[in-house]
Each structure stands twice: as C-alpha cells, then as structure tokens.
C-alpha cells in the first residue's frame, strides 16, 4: 500500500494556516508575558510574611499543577460564564494559558529565589532598603538568571500547549489544521505542516530566549 503525499492541494489554504499561526503567536506572546508576571508576583507572595497570602499562592500553584490543562480550560470557558463572566473563546484561552504558566513559573522562580544567599537579603537590609525593594532589585534579577533555562523551556511548553485551546474553537494553528483536513481530507499533510510550524516556532523561541539572555545578563555567570 502506498500513500501519495499531496502538498500542492494545501496551497489554497495557506491564508488559513497563516491566520492560525498568527493566533498561536498572539496567544504565546501574551501568555508568556502575563504568565511570567503572574508567576513573579506569586513567587513573592510565597515568601511573604503574611500567612494568608502564602497559603493562597501555594493553593493556586498546587491546584493548577495537579489538574490537566484541558480541564482548566473548560472550567474557564464553560464554568465562568455560568458564574456571570462572559468570555470569548480567545479570551478564555489566553486566561487559561496565563494561569497555567503563572503556576509553573511561580515554582521555577521561587527555586531561583530560594537559591539566593541569605547575605544578599542582609546586605540590602543593612543598606536601608525595604523588603520589597530588596526583592525586586537584589533578589529577583539573579533569581531569573539562575532559572532562565527552565523558564524558557516552560514558555515553549506553553506555546505547544496552546494547541489544546483549539478544543474551545480558538482559531489557532491546530484549529486551522483540523479545519483544512476536514475540507481536503488531506489529514496527514495538514498535520505535517502544523507539526513543522510548531517545530519552527519552538526553535525560534529558543533563539529569542538566547538573544534576550545575551542582552539582559551581562555579568559573569553566577
């Protein structure tokens, strides 16, 4: 039995692929920025002196890290409207991705914070900085530097995980591939194209992270 790959028939659907790719990029950029911000704030919450804040942050992290992403997505898309929050599929997808990356990056960033020598806190304190200033100016930047590779990997996982939001009809790359294969019945070809595009995106993201690293961390490695 032989299967003849037929890529030329996909050419008319390039605009659909491009639109899907663009949505995937959009989702990835927004959720990376939002997720890392959320993770940073929660990491600060997890080392707070306030017991309540610490508890809330660790509950959030544990709940998200111990449930499937697709369930989180359905919960936000189908569950929240029941509580009166109207969300488009795109909005629900972004929120789910931000919340998901937020939880994982909280743990990653916290590991970097925990690795800060106690003397760094003390040096900041004896210079008269507030605890918050010590955190943001002294502790956080080297913490990021320490765990940067793990952060980069997690962001790529989130980009790949964005394919799951096709399940609530967000028209990203996987959704486009589904759509095209249902029109053309060229399922093998459609998913080959999608897979190659994801692969390319992941490689580009690694390059981008390496570039950001070179421009941001100028000091000798820690």
């Amino acid at each position, binding site marked *: 039995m032989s299967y003849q790959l037929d890529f030329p028939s996909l050419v008319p659907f390039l605009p659909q692929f491009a639109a899907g790719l663009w949505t995937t990029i959009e989702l990835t950029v927004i959720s990376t920025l939002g997720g890392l911000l959320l993770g940073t704030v929660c990491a600060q919450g997890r080392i707070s002196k306030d017991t309540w804040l610490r508890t809330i942050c660790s509950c959030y992290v544990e709940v998200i890290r111990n449930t499937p992403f697709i369930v989180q997505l359905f919960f936000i898309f189908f569950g929240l409207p029941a509580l009166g929050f109207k969300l488009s599929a795109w909005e629900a997808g972004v929120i789910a991705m931000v919340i998901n990356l937020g939880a994982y990056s909280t743990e990653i960033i916290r590991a970097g914070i925990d690795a800060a*020598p106690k*003397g*760094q806190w*003390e*040096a900041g*304190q*004896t*210079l*008269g*900085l*507030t*605890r918050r*200033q010590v955190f943001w*100016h*002294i502790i956080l*930047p*080297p913490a990021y*530097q320490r765990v940067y590779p793990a952060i980069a990997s997690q962001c790529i996982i989130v980009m790949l995980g964005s394919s799951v939001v096709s399940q609530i009809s967000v028209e990203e790359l996987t959704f486009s591939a589904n759509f095209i294969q249902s029109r053309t019945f060229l399922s093998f070809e459609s998913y080959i194209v999608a897979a190659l595009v994801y692969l390319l995106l992941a490689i580009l993201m690694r390059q981008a992270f390496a570039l950001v690293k070179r421009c941001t*961390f*100028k*000091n*000798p*490695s*820690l």
Partner: protein
Amino acid sequence: MSLVSLDKVHKYYGDNHVLKGVDLKIEAGEVVSIIGRSGSGKSTLLRCMNGLEQYQKGGVIVDNQSVEDDEYKLRLLSRSVGMVFQSFNLFPHMTVGQNVMLATKLVLKKSPSESKKLAEELLEKVGLSDKFSAYPGNLSGGQQQRVAIARSLAMSPKVLLCDEITSALDPELVGEVLKVLEQLKAEGMTLILVTHEMNFARDVGDRVVFMNQGKVWETGASDEIFANPQTEELKSFLAAVR
C-alpha cells in the same frame, strides 16, 4: 551619650544562650576590635547592633536610636550603621558603580548624577576608580571587599560594623583592605571589627573587647590588652592565636 551602648543584652538561639548579659559602650571615633574563640558570640553581638539579630533581654542603643524588632525603625537605623560582611555580599548582577549607587538612589533619593558623583568619589577613596563599570564577578576578593566598604560608606554611616572582613581573602589581599580601614580611622570613622588580625587590632585599634562564654570577658586599650592580659582565658586565647 555613647554612640553604641549595650545594656545587659541576652540572646538565645532556641535553648542556646549565646549572649549572657553583654554590657558595652563605644564612643564616636573609637576603633574597637572584638576578639574571641569561634562560637563565643562575636558575630551575634555585632548583628544585634544593627537589628540583623533580635535579642531577648536588655537594651541596645545606637546613635540615640533603640534597636528593636521593627522594620521601619531598623530602616532608619540603617542610615547610621553600615555593615561589611565576610563574604562581601555584593550584588552580582550590578556593576561596581551600581552596587554603590543603589541605596543612595532608592533610600536617600539622591539624583542619578549626585549618586554617580558620590560613587566615583568613594571608589576613588578605596582605590578602585577604574572599576566603576566592572562586575563584582570579575574582581579579586580584595577588590570586592573594598567595593563593599565603599557601598556602605555611601550611606554616610556613623559607625561601620565589620565581621571578619578579611577572613575570606587570600593573605596577599588582606593588606589592601586593612589599609582602607586605617584610612577610615584617620578620618575619624567609628569602627567595630570582629577580627582575627591581631596585629591590626594591636596597631590600629584603640580598644579590644575579648568575648568569652557569651560575655565581655575582658576589655581595655589595645596595647594594654596584648602586653598585659589579665584573665587566664585571654592569656590562653592570645597564646593560641599567635
């Protein structure tokens, strides 16, 4: 009123009674060396003077401010009390200049140009004017420690606490750091040094405090203490470190 005054200070780590009623007064302009065996509570004593450690009984007053467990009060106190650590504790992601300027910008709210000018002056003073844009990770230990001193001085403290600041250095680098301390003494800075450098304590220090079993066991003028120790404990300590 003494610049630093400790009144019957008791400090426990759990069940470990580390400071057992320390009385100590230090005047402005004095250079005081604190010596004693490992575990005798020297670091703890120093850290009680700037609130890095809390004590359970007694009182500590520095520059007319009571040292208490209160974040706001300790922040005010930190303008009077500088500290230099054994392990430098420079901020690795900031250049030397940024290390020195951080607190003047964030705490004293000086303008960037003012901060920069001050940082350049201080680095000049510790002999590192050419390292303004270098990162700590590219400096020798002696250079890093001098940056740390400049960083403390940027807050114009009234007293500088130094906890074994030459202990992590290669022997040939100790001298350059001690020279900076001598220079500070000449300018009238109050220095409280936990130190193993007995020669420095004798030649540069005004007074020696010998800590033993959580107490100020013996104290006196430097030359006196070294020439004529009174207690058996100090005699045997001095014999051991020589």
